[in-house]
């Protein structure tokens, strides 16, 4: 049982500070997902929790105890490395059993646990191979296997599924979800995959440049992003931001307009705007719907179409030159240059200050 508290955590490489004061509370048994752009410090944070990086500042508490200087082996964590870090001189089986061997588990126990992990990971036929004889995804699964054969109180996953195909990834994702429920262990999970983040997380922490941008439940973040960065980061394709002028504003709503768009009233969600302000209207591509020219609020010409089968993403060049992404949940055919008109529900938009 382990709850984890990060308090003002900092990490520098030389003069370069990559974690710049991070506070996160992870409750015992919680599934916490770190997301953020490449290089924002996710792996570093994970490695600090594991005890592999020195902590330059702040405190790290596991289970109420300060563990800044505690050795990794005494922290009771298991970790899946982004670069796998599987032992080249051991077979897959030995790799998976490593933690058990270390703790002196019996042969039978090892065999059984490895067998179970291999089933979950669909790699029973590979158990006697050497890592050099595996494909990228297979190696990654070995790394996962090594973590799950043990029963640590904290799991750390660093992009564990990035090299797996969609089907297997979904499967693994569900397995990890199941594992989490079964073991009740605390899990910290780094991923670039929004689906993984949204589906697995009890709590998502969005990082940027070594700082926490927002943390909370997936839906909270999705529907109530604390700032423009989070709004843009979550959701794919990402949110459109349209420059608008604030005409009127109160504590609930604001009336905004822009060139070639009639004024609409949108919620301000706690932000303050004054008439005359320039603001950014956030509009998720999925919430844009095709409409007739007269109902439509936005008009543009198709500049790019991406057909994904069940979804069609369209890049529109609007009259004032800005571009807008729209996603339709159907396979639709568009011609490049085709003119389309779009509507959206103002209640589902977000309004941001431009410098957020």
């Amino acid at each position, binding site marked *: 049982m382990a709850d984890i508290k990060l308090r003002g955590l900092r990490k520098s490489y030389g003069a370069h500070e990559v974690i710049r004061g991070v506070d996160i509370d992870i409750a015992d048994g919680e599934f916490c997902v770190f997301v953020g752009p490449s290089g924002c410090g996710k792996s570093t944070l994970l490695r600090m929790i594991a005890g592999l990086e020195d902590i330059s500042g702040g405190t790290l508490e596991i289970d109420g105890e300060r563990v800044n200087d505690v*050795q990794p082996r005494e922290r009771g964590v*298991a970790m899946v*490395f982004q670069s796998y*870090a599987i032992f080249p001189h051991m077979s897959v089986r030995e790799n998976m059993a490593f933690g058990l061997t270390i703790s002196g588990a019996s042969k039978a126990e090892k065999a059984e646990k490895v067998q179970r992990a291999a089933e979950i990971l669909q790699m029973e036929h590979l158990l006697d191979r050497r890592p050099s004889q595996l494909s990228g995804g297979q190696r990654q699964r070995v790394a996962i296997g090594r973590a799950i054969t043990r029963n640590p109180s904290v799991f750390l996953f660093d992009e564990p599924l990035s090299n797996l195909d969609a089907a297997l990834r979904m499967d693994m994702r569900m397995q990890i979800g199941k594992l989490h429920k079964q073991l009740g262990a605390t899990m910290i999970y780094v991923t670039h995959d929004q689906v993984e983040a949204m589906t697995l997380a009890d709590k998502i922490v969005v990082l940027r440049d070594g700082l926490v941008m927002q943390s909370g439940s997936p839906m909270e973040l999705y529907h109530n992003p604390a700032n423009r960065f989070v709004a843009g980061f979550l959701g794919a394709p990402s949110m459109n931001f349209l420059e608008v002028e604030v005409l009127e504003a109160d504590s609930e709503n604001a009336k905004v307009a822009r060139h070639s768009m009639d004024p609409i009233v949108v919620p301000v969600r706690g932000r303050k705007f004054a008439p005359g302000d320039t603001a950014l209207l956030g509009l998720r591509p999925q919430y844009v719907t095709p409409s007739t020219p007269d109902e439509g609020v936005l008009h543009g010409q198709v500049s790019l179409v991406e057909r994904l089968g069940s979804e069609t993403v369209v890049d529109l060049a609007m009259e004032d030159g800005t571009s807008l992404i729209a996603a339709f949940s159907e396979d639709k055919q568009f011609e490049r240059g085709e003119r389309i008109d779009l509507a959206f529900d103002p209640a589902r938009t977000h309004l941001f200050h431009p410098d957020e």
Partner: protein
Amino acid sequence: MSVIGSDNRNLRLGVRYLVLILIALIFVLPLLFMVMSSFKPSDELLRDTSSLRAFLPVGQLSLDNYTGAFERAPVGLFVFNSIFVTGTTVLLSLVICSLAGFSFVFLQWRGRDVMLSIILATFIVPFETIAIPLLLEVSKLPWLGLDGLSWGWLDSYRVQIIPWIADGLTIFLFVQYFKGLPGELIEAARVEGASWFQIYRRVVIPLSGPVIATAAILKFLIMYNQYLWPLIVVQQEQYRPVMVGLQYFFQLNPAWGEIMAYLTLITVPVLAFYLVLQKAFIASIASTGVKG
């Protein structure tokens, strides 16, 4: 495969082998001379040294030199002594020096860097120059044996083994190699809960095939070719190694035939040791090799 291509290939292959063989000749001829000479009577072998006959099994060949060598000196005993002393030292040295190397690379402790510099500086000291002070030292050291406490290590195996176990060069070899190991493997093992010793035992050592082989060969050669040290610390024939034994053959008239026979005999174990190690060495590389 087109015909031209295969011809070209064969030609290129042929040239490669030719180069390899020519170089091999340079290395093997003097040794061939040694082996061939060991079957010839002394005066004939001396006469042959001036011509290509030196490398050829020509003339009156016999095993006389070998029987002669065995009569002149207890060759078997010397070889046993050398192998025993060498083997023990190599084993102990690999363990102790790799542990030290591990500690210097992966662990941090007070005084580590200073210690490392000092140890590395020691392999600059040629042994010949510390032999006498060392002799004075070991002649006074205590030893707790089966028959109680005794003083002085002379005339024993231990005096030939213990001072040679640790040396700066071997530690340096390990340090250099360990520095190149992927750090994340160590990290992975740490997270998995392995103690430092387990990391050493189960991760680092299995990955260290090449350096172990190199260090073992180096140590083996140094130990097997020991001359000055056993000469001064061992007075009893029963502990003498092969290189001291070689002196048995340099009488007023060196028995060159027997010398060659003896040299051949004492070279065989080293060669065997190398061949065995080479196999292990290649196997370890094959198993640790990484593929993209």
